[in-house]
């Protein structure tokens, strides 16, 4: 069997001569083996392309995520910071009254005002009671 170096050392005419020698039998499965090898190579290159594509896509997604996550984190930090600083900086109002008695009188008025308004509501409800009773009786 010839070695690779021997083949490399052959001249073109010698190679032609060997190629045209029909006495040398070509193995029966050679064509099939070449076809299988070619298909395997094709599939391998396709797979490699797909892997490259996936890698490129995931890199793109990672970049997009990075692009979104940094501003999102910045927004969150700014919002929380501002909210906290605002909460801290809301000035507590000064008491309107220095004298607790005066404040108590004001509270009396506030409760009186609330009661007065609720009383108006009760009056309206009381006035509607006979109508409601009549309606209930009719329905019965």
């Amino acid at each position, binding site marked *: 069997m010839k070695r690779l170096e021997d083949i490399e050392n052959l001249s073109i005419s010698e190679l032609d001569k060997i190629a045209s020698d029909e006495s040398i039998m070509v193995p029966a499965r050679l064509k099939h083996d070449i076809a299988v090898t070619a298909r395997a190579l094709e599939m391998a290159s396709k797979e490699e392309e797909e892997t490259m594509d996936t890698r490129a896509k995931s890199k793109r997604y990672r970049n997009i995520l990075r692009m979104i996550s940094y501003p999102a984190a910045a927004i969150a930090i700014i919002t929380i910071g501002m909210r906290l600083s605002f909460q801290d900086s809301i000035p507590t109002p000064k008491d309107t009254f220095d004298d*607790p008695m005066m*404040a108590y009188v*004001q*509270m009396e008025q506030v*409760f009186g005002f609330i*009661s007065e308004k609720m009383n108006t509501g009760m009056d*309206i409800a009381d006035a509607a009671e006979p109508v409601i009773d009549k309606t209930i009786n009719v329905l019965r």
Partner: protein
Amino acid sequence: MKKIAAFVAAMFLLTAGAWAQDGKGIYNKYSDNEEVSAVYISSSMFKLMGNKMPNMDLGEGSSMNLGSIIKNLNSMYLLDCEDPDLCKEIKSDVSKFITKYDFELLMEIKDKGEVVRIYTTGNEKTVTQFIMTASEYDAFTFICLDGTMSRADLEKAIAKATQNME
């Protein structure tokens, strides 16, 4: 850079807007206005009042001790406005406040052009905030009681006051 500045300004305005949406914020926003009468009572003052005050006069010679309610109050904000444009603005802020904190409408009274609404937050036993708004075309009153009040005590106090006014 301009975009960043615009964004920060927008966030600032949003946060500032949110700040105005509670009793304290609304009070701070409008209490200095000349068209508004404003009253604020702090928790320290409530503690002083709760310890030392006599029974509260509820009219018609009746009285009751509101010490237990008052002692647990943190603050009371009252705004009374008679400027139609300003009233609209306060109403809008109060409405945002009520929506934001999920207040429950306890009572609504419509009488002769006046609309009174009472809202509370808390649970079955405790009221943590009590709001009353009285709104007419050209006048608006906002009362906000903030603290931990027993719902039963508060209802009793208001019911008693209502009875005594009859």
